[in-house]
């Protein structure tokens, strides 16, 4: 009769707790007692979200109790009809009884509908509110948090978990109460009518509960195992899709399919174990009450025959017993849903409890150093150390004792071997990560004393991985500017980044890109990201290898245009290649987390062996390598400036390259 889809799959897995809830009969373990309490405590955390709709929810619960009790009165009317008007052959009484039935039926229908109507909008609101809060919060959590959490994990908290919570608020929360009351009232009615029959009906309660306690633990374990295996399977699916070119490139799809099949066979085995446990539980749950009703029927029949019981009472009794089956059966899965809701709550608050980026201390606004003398103008690192907050104890910091000064209007290239900490260093400037110790100042102001908004308005960044959002090309670029920026700024930025292709897209700069729109090549995305970084004419510019995906022609054109932009900004540019380094006025060499040398490109080439090695690869500024007058590369190699500080590897490489 209840408007809930029965969930036999989980029906019994928490039924032992029915005990904990309804009364305190012994039989539950200490463990489950504890688990139940913490479930309640976990769920109580939902209160702030439920509070605004508490009136509606409690009204709905009251309405549902009323509706349930109306349902229990119906058998009593039947009894009255059978024993009264029917036995007395009183047609008027029959009409009256039917009228009562009709009214009660209409009331029941109306009340159940009313309950749903009462909670529909408020619960949708609770779900949406929690989701909006989660999204808001996630946007403000430190980047380090996002490094640790896959977006899929966050998404499942924002979707499935919240839906579970909405369902919990709609059904289990209300109906655990409603069904408890219904069962209590029903049992009282039955005992009052005939206590022996009542006891017979109650007989199976104990064995059913014992069965459920026995199976609950095992079922919960298998269910969790199945969930994990689904997760493993999903990982294989995800990777096989994301790595499709590798799988195809190496012809490995058979072994992938084999791995997938093995995992899905394992999952099938687990699911079947789950089904076996369930079928055993259901076998007990169906059989025992049915036998009790049978016993009650036989006993009742004897009593009716003996005249100790009216026929009407027997009908009413059986009818009540039948009406109580759903509330009793359902308690198992209501508790299972409650348990799931508690897990969902935990998962939700796991994220909500994470500390957002710390606020900016107010008093710092008047920091003495804010006055900033000329020596502090520009971008300056003061003994900056950084290690990832989640780095294992004792591991060396990623960056240590960084002292670096980018003067106003100057461009500084950041060069270093793979893994030397270049990208990490750039992330510290817009405070995507917080320095572990030391300070970074912009024109003398410590960035940790600036509101992040202000800081990030001052500093524009182009990341190595150019991410575009689902919006038009124009919107994507103009994100880098304040709201007043318009067409002319957009065009200028696109021109600087050599991203004029945007005008020839199907809808020009209004063309939708990103996950939902047209997919662009890596080089195109990189140019748009660059345009985004320069569109707002920022005071400070941070570029992380901004030209890596461009072909030679485009790279040259971008460099030419970028030079003008760099002339008027203070910039930090991560560079892998001489061509990019040459955009900058000076170069800082980062080596194993420290600044090893600072100087111009040519100075460092001459004086620093590591720098020369980093720059002297194939891209060494040696136009002669393939020059027509010197077609033999082996000879050319000997002429390269890099040969000033030759490393054995390079010499080897040069020779081997043409074997």
């Amino acid at each position, binding site marked *: 009769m209840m408007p809930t889809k029965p969930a036999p799959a989980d029906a019994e897995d928490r039924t032992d707790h029915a005990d904990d809830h309804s009364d305190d009969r012994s039989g539950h373990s200490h463990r489950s007692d504890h688990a139940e309490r913490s479930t309640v405590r976990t769920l109580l955390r939902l209160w702030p979200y439920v509070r605004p709709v508490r009136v509606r929810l409690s009204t709905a619960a009251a309405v549902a109790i009323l509706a349930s009790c109306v349902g229990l009165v119906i058998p009593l009317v039947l009894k009255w009809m059978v024993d009264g008007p029917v036995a007395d052959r009183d047609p008027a009484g029959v009409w009256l009884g039917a009228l009562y039935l009709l009214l009660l039926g209409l009331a029941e229908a109306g009340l159940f509908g009313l309950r749903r109507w009462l909670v*529909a909008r408020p619960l949708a609101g609770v779900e949406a509110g929690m989701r909006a809060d989660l999204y808001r919060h996630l946007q403000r959590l430190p980047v380090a948090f996002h490094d640790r959490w896959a977006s899929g994990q966050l998404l499942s908290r924002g979707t499935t978990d919240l839906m579970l919570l909405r369902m919990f608020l709609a059904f289990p929360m209300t109906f655990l109460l409603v069904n408890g009351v219904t069962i209590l009232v029903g049992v009282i009615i039955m005992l009052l009518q005939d206590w022996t029959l009542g006891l017979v009906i109650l007989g199976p309660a104990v064995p059913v509960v014992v069965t459920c306690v026995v199976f609950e633990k095992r079922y919960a374990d298998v269910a969790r195992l199945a969930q994990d295996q689904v997760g493993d399977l999903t990982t294989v699916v995800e990777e096989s899709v994301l790595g499709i070119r*590798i799988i195809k490139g190496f012809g490995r799809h058979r072994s992938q399919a084999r791995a997938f099949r093995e995992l899905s066979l394992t999952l099938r085995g687990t699911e079947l174990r789950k089904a076996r446990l369930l079928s055993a539980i259901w076998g007990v749950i169906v059989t025992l009450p049915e036998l009790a009703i049978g016993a009650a029927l036989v006993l009742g029949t004897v009593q009716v025959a003996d005249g100790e019981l009216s026929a009407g009472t027997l009908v009413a009794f059986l009818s009540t017993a039948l009406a109580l089956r759903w509330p009793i059966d359902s308690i198992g899965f209501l508790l299972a849903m409650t348990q799931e809701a508690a897990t969902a709550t935990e998962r939700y608050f796991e994220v909500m409890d994470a500390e957002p980026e710390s606020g900016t201390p107010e008093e710092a606004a008047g920091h003495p150093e804010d006055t900033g003398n000329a020596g502090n103008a520009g971008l300056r690192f003061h003994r900056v150390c950084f290690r990832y907050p989640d780095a294992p104890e004792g591991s060396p910091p990623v960056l240590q004792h960084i002292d670096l000064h980018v003067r106003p209007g100057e461009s500084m290239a950041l060069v270093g071997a793979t893994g030397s900490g270049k990208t990490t260093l750039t992330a510290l400037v817009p405070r995507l990560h917080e320095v572990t110790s030391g300070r970074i100042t912009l024109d003398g102001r410590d960035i940790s004393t600036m509101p992040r908004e202000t800081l990030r308005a001052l500093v524009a960044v182009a990341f190595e991985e150019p991410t575009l959002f689902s919006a038009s090309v124009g919107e994507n670029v103009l994100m880098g500017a304040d709201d007043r920026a318009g067409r002319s700024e957009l065009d200028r930025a696109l021109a600087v980044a050599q991203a004029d292709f945007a005008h020839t897209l199907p809808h020009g700069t209004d063309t939708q890109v990103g996950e939902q729109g047209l997919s662009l090549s890596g080089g195109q995305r990189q140019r748009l990201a660059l345009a985004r970084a320069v569109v707002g004419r920022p005071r400070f510019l941070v570029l992380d290898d901004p030209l890596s995906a461009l072909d*030679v022609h485009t790279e040259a054109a971008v460099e030419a245009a970028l030079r003008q932009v760099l002339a008027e900004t203070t910039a930090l540019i991560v560079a892998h290649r001489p061509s990019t380094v040459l955009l900058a006025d000076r170069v800082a060499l980062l080596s194993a987390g420290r600044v090893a040398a600072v100087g111009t490109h040519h100075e460092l080439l001459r004086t620093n062996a590591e720098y020369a090695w980093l720059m002297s690869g194939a891209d060494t500024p040696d136009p002669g390598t393939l020059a027509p007058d010197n077609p033999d590369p082996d000879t050319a190699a000997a002429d390269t400036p890099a040969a000033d500080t030759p490393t054995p590897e390079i010499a080897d490489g040069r020779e081997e390259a043409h074997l």
Partner: protein
Amino acid sequence: MTAPTTPAPPTADDDGPDTPGSPPVDDAFDRDVLPTPPGATAALLRSLLAPMKARVALTTVLLLLQQAAVQAGPLLVAYAIDSAVPAFRRADHGPLIAVAAAYLLCGVASGGLQYAFIGASARVNQDVLLDLRGRIFRHAQALSVDFHERYTSGRLISRSTTDVESLRELLNEGLQELVTVILSFVYISAMLLWLDLGLGAVAVASFVPLYALVRMYRRRAGRVFTVRSTAIAAVIVKFVETMNGIRPVRAFRREAVNDAEFRALNHRHERINGDAMLEMARYVICSRVVANIAVAGIVLWGAYRVADGTLALGVLAAAVLYLRRLYDPIDRLGMFLNSYQSAAASLEKIAGLLAQTPSVPEPSAPRELPALESAYPGREVVFEGVRFAYRTGGEVLPRFDLTLPAGQTVAVVGATGAGKSTLAKLLARFYDPSDGRVLLDGVDLRDLAVPELRRGVVMVTQESFLFSGTVAENIAIGRPDATREDIERAAKAIGAHDFISALPDGYDTDVRKRGGRISAGQRQLVAFARALLADPAVLILDEATSSLDVPGERAVQRAMSTVLRGRTAVVIAHRLSTVEIADRVLVMEHGRIVEDGTPAELVAGTGRFADLHRAWRDSLS
């Protein structure tokens, strides 16, 4: 699967989109609707169930019997009241014992049959799901790269996860529910008709308005659900996009704007979600009203007739008990329709995916490569009258012929969109040519089975995806039977050994999801080591060094010079430095090979390569 459709053409090839004319903007892929041949969904369901006809039949029989046992109860009540009571009064205990025995039998049977049924149906369900999961997986793997380039990974993943999940829910809960409901309708109606034709007729008559209600609900809820699934999809996309792009979000202070946009999307979903629940509330009220009116009517008439003496009391009691059971499942029918609707939508999407035919099919009669003639692993590659165009038109490579002798290292240069990657993908057989053939030592690539093909040609792309597992396992993808020594040798050759040894567990370090904090350049080195390990006759490197720093690139080139010796190689790079290791350079422009010669020849000439080279030189000065 029954009616193969023409796969839609790729919109954006890796190097294609600079020519904005080619991608059709509005196509099936963008709307996440693949062309599904009519009846494909039903055909899919049939083909899934066909192998287990016998077990489906067994399950059905079990359910039929189980329902019969369950629904016998009220009948026994009627018999007890009308026959056993009078008999007992006559001291005839036979009927009562019969009732007791029958009830015992029914109780045990309904429990036992329930037990058997859950087991049997779980096996059917799990086998269907196993089959379906496997089919989706294998099919997705068989579909060609151009399909994957257009059908975003997110969609493919949700096909094999959420869509299969919604079918699982339908199978596990919904379908059994539906059959139970229908069976109990049939049984109870039959019982009521048998007990008393008149009462039964009234009950059956009440089905008419109920059926109308269910249909109306289904129609209205269907509309709401469609809107709701679009609304939640929009919320999800916004959510994922924000979280994946959290750095730019922060750096460009998008938080407030995003909050507002998300609020709007979220609010839309909230409203439609509320609508869906209200729709359900309406359905519950209406169906309950009809049911309760029917109950009141039947009781009135029945009681009247009992009072008249034309109906036995026991029959009325049984009728009342049956009626309770009859109308109980109506609400659940509504719930079932919900899960049915979402499963149907999912199944249709899956059917659409499965109906895609791989545009690069496996050969029906595979051939083998001829035995190598020399000690070197290289093989000759011939493009014979090859032309490549998307199926909508949009020619990428006009007809051309090209021969790469065995053992030659060929660099392909050209601007973005010149067709370099397309050339490479044709050689790797990620695509098949529209016309002409690609031959490896005289054998058409289309005639090679996958293992043979991959012994012949391996391609390293700029993507550096790492699979979960250890670094060693990731390298071993190149050759699964490789020993640890082989793996380390490959890593050393490419200059990856040092950074791998420096990882916490060396080669046994788990790379976790998507490579964790292994940098892009390091991932590319792993990809190279993998290719070295594979030891193919032809190696294609497509922008494979873009994330490496100069020493890294040097190390790779150094390794290449050893590794490529005697091997046929095609190297695509933006950077002219790569050309250094090539025996021959092809310059491409607008899909055509415009220059072809040794590096020195081309530099000495006056062609495009000489210009490019000059530009490159200038950029360095």
